[in-house]
């Protein structure tokens, strides 16, 4: 895993993305060949499959398969990745097979330095590389046809899975693929002008929908192998606790039980069916070593954050002298914002299937990080890379949870112990109690305004926990985790600005959670922007516009104008009909967002009626999937803003299922109006940014409705009634 770690610093991200664009623009070959895989293989039915490069397989039966190297967790990669290849390959998108890629270095995400799906990087990373892959395969097929017909390549074109000569002669790709795969990979693939795209940029139908409306789509939970057993694992209810001893006499005597296995994280019952495994697991009598985690409570964690305010912080940005500017300002204000732990709560609870045999190991299931799955299996089994195969299924949600591989380690350990294929299935309660939680944060801001209400200085100190310090420690340098400081620096033109970041370990294990620190920092920044506007006696829209002048503010101003125009925004967010609006803006993942929440408040409970979202995410692969991701992000962000939090008592998570960890439901879903900016800017990410702007847009609307400032989420009726 070392290369992942080494390659995943923010600086490396930039270098990699530059290298990638140079490769495509300059025509250099990027790594698209897979040396380890035979160029042509013959199946039992006699069909020969040839593979001109790592993304394209063509059968002698003319069946084209596109390898999707980013996992599908709802965000649409199963469609958008093949669209990019198919555009240049000149095939009918609806006739191609799609296969999820195995773990192989050729599929590494250059923006993250690993074969990892996350960080809203898939389209940004693949935009050029996958078109290059499609174009190279197309050119090799054309070369093969030209050689066959003994005519110049320039007299041939590719169309709908065929090469067609000027004379009208035609050959199907399936007839050319074997020859084409032996040809040299073109060093200067010619990419289409985006103006001539037939697939990319169009709202084509998702390729996974038919399987997902018939129950046929295979998730991790659905993996079936001959002789497979099911495992249910008891883990210590206290954070980080380990099993000391177990009395399994009763469990072992129960029907269907094959084995009881003690592993690092707990005690697993392996049985023929899930219900047998789960019932017997509940009959185990385990003595736990609770460890140091037993002392943690929500109050002690919150106090820890407050104490950490005295700790030194690393500088994120410093222009001018904010301290001095604020001290001399006509008006001063200060505020702190505190956010809770959150669970990912994917609909599909954690699970994985491992088949550890004497001759190798196969893994099946939902993971965002196939390369890490392969790595941990190699470590546990001692097998070399070529004996470990990762078969990634559809993911029933990811949201960052499935970047971690704890449940994969467990499945491999259990399968190794029993020598059989084992599907480990967590219960919802397991999933809620053993997440890697979205970190807590305590963000403190202060500002000074001049007599005219113009901000002259601003300070932002963020205090939170670093996920990166756990997962990729070398990326954290000089006290700075680049993921923790996302959206910490606002676009607003304030002459004297200090932004500082302090890493505080809360003692709770934390993970990347959809939009990561954007959600923590944008909530503070965009709420405080409204607080500054109030202090300046200006409307929040007018106040923002006045601080977004010049070329740098152009994309922000554009989306802000569109969102507020379309929402029918009125001064102070007061619509005059019992409805109130709030604004939030942000840039994240290269995407510019402006969002207007429209709410009413009854008995201290806000109801969100409408979300108007204007987005400039540059060029798009599939605008309908972009739209779906925005709708999705609003829902995910609203769960966090209105409903969900994880709390601790005596080191145990107090929530266990959807009754005490409420999430947004149909009746609470507002209407979402999306406005996409037509753009020729390079693609931005879309899976996450709107999660971050949803919270502050609602909190600002609540203030406009009630005069009560929300500085904690989720918004609780109690807080609104008493505040």
């Amino acid at each position, binding site marked *: 895993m070392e290369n992942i770690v080494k390659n995943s610093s923010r600086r490396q991200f930039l270098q990699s993305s530059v290298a990638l664009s140079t490769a495509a623009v300059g025509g250099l070959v990027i790594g698209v060949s897979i040396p380890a895989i035979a160029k042509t293989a013959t199946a039992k039915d006699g069909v020969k499959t040839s593979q001109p490069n790592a993304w394209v397989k063509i059968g002698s039966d003319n069946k084209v398969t596109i390898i999707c190297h980013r996992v*599908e*967790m*709802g*965000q*649409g990669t199963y469609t958008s990745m093949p669209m990019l290849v198919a555009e240049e390959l000149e095939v009918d998108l609806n006739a191609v097979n799609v296969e999820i890629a195995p773990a192989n270095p050729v599929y590494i995400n250059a923006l993250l330095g690993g074969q990892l799906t996350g960080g809203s990087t898939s389209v940004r990373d693949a935009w050029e590389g996958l078109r290059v892959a499609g174009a190279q395969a197309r050119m090799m097929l054309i070369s093969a046809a030209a050689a066959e017909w003994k005519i110049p390549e320039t007299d041939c074109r590719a169309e709908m899975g065929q090469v067609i000569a000027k004379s009208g002669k035609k050959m199907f790709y399936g007839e050319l693929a074997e020859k084409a795969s032996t040809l040299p990979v073109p060093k200067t693939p010619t990419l289409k002008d985006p103006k001539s795209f037939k697939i990319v940029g169009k709202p084509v*139908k*998702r390729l996974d*929908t*038919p*399987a*997902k*409306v*018939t*129950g046929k*789509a295979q*998730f991790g*939970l*659905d993996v*079936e192998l001959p002789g497979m057993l*099911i495992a249910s694992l008891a883990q210590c209810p206290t954070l980080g606790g380990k099993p000391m001893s177990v009395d399994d006499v009763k469990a072992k005597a129960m*029907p269907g039980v094959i084995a009881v296995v003690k592993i690092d994280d707990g005690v697993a019952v392996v049985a023929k*069916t*899930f*219900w047998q495994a789960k*019932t017997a697991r509940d009959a185990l009598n385990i003595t736990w070593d609770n460890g140091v985690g037993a002392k943690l409570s929500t109050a002690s964690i919150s106090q820890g954050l407050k104490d950490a305010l005295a700790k030194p912080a690393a500088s994120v940005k410093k222009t001018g002298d904010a301290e001095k500017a604020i001290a001399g300002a006509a008006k001063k204000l200060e505020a702190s914002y505190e956010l809770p732990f959150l669970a990912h*709560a994917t*609909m*599909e*609870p954690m699970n994985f299937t491992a088949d550890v045999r004497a001759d190798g190991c196969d893994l099946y299931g939902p993971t965002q990080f196939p390369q890490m799955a392969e790595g941990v299996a190699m470590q546990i089994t001692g097998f070399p890379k070529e004996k470990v195969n990762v078969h990634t299924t*559809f*993911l*029933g*949600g*990811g*949201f960052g949870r499935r970047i971690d591989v704890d449940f994969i380690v467990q499945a491999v350990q259990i399968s190794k112990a029993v020598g059989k294929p084992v599907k480990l*299935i967590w219960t*919802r*309660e397991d999933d809620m109690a053993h997440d890697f939680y979205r970190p807590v944060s305590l963000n403190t801001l202060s500002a000074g305004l001049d007599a005219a209400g113009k901000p002259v200085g601003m300070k932002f100190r963020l205090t939170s926990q670093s996920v990166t310090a756990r997962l990729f420690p070398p990326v954290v340098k000089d006290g700075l985790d680049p993921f923790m400081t996302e959206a910490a620096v606002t676009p607003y033109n304030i002459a004297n600005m200090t932004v500082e970041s302090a890493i505080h370990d809360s003692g709770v294990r934390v993970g990347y959670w959809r939009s990561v620190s954007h959600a923590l920092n944008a909530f503070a920044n965009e709420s405080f922007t409204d607080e500054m506007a109030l202090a300046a006696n200006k409307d929040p829209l007018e106040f923002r516009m006045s601080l977004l002048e010049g070329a740098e503010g152009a994309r922000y101003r554009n989306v802000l104008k569109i969102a507020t125009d379309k929402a029918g925004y009125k001064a102070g967010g007061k619509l005059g009909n019992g409805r109130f609006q709030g604004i939030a803006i942000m840039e994240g993942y290269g995407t510019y967002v402006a969002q207007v929440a*429209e709410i009413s408040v009854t008995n201290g409970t806000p109801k969100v*009626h*409408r979300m108007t979202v204007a987005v400039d995410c540059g060029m798009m692969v599939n605008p*309908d*999937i972009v739209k*779906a991701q925005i*709708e*999705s*992000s*609003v*829902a995910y962000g609203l*769960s966090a803003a209105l409903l969900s939090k994880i709390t601790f008592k005596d080191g145990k998570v107090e929530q266990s*299922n*959807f*009754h005490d960890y409420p999430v947004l*439901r*149909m*009746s609470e*879903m*507002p*209407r979402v*109006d999306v406005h996409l900016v037509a753009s020729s800017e390079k693609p931005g990410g879309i899976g996450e940014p709107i999660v971050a702007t949803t919270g502050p847009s609602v909190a600002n609307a609540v203030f406009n409705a009630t005069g009560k400032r929300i500085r904690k989420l989720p918004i609780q009726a109690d807080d609104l009634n008493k505040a």
Partner: protein
Amino acid sequence: MTKLNVNGKAVSIDAAPDTPLLWALRDHLKLNGTKYGCGMALCGACTVHLNGEPVRSCSTSLSACAGKNITTIEGISDKGLHPVQQAWIALDVPQCGYCQSGQIMSAVALLNKNKKPSDADIDAAMSGNVCRCGTYQRVRAAIHQAAGQPATQAREA
């Protein structure tokens, strides 16, 4: 041995009587389209029809299904030709897709009883089905479309 009828076929299942229908369907009949989400009837991912009524199969014991008719997602239309599935396809409702079998089973049950559901009817019938991808807006539109109403009829803002 519990005898019941699943998707029009008589089946006998050799499992403990307290086994939830969900796990009997999945582990014994290998009907994997019905999903486990919470085990407490809180999320709706496991929704199937019992004698035509939507039930949460994670919290319905196998013994309670003896002699009854069960319909799962596999029994609606294998090829996705049911009007609800067709509307789902037309509007590209699913994202991760995990909850969608349950969403569709709840929607089919709603439309069987109420040919032209209002937004409030949809809220009442569908709020037991959690979707963490937040496909609710499209679920609503697809139900309207399957009911022969304009799919553009998004919730009144």
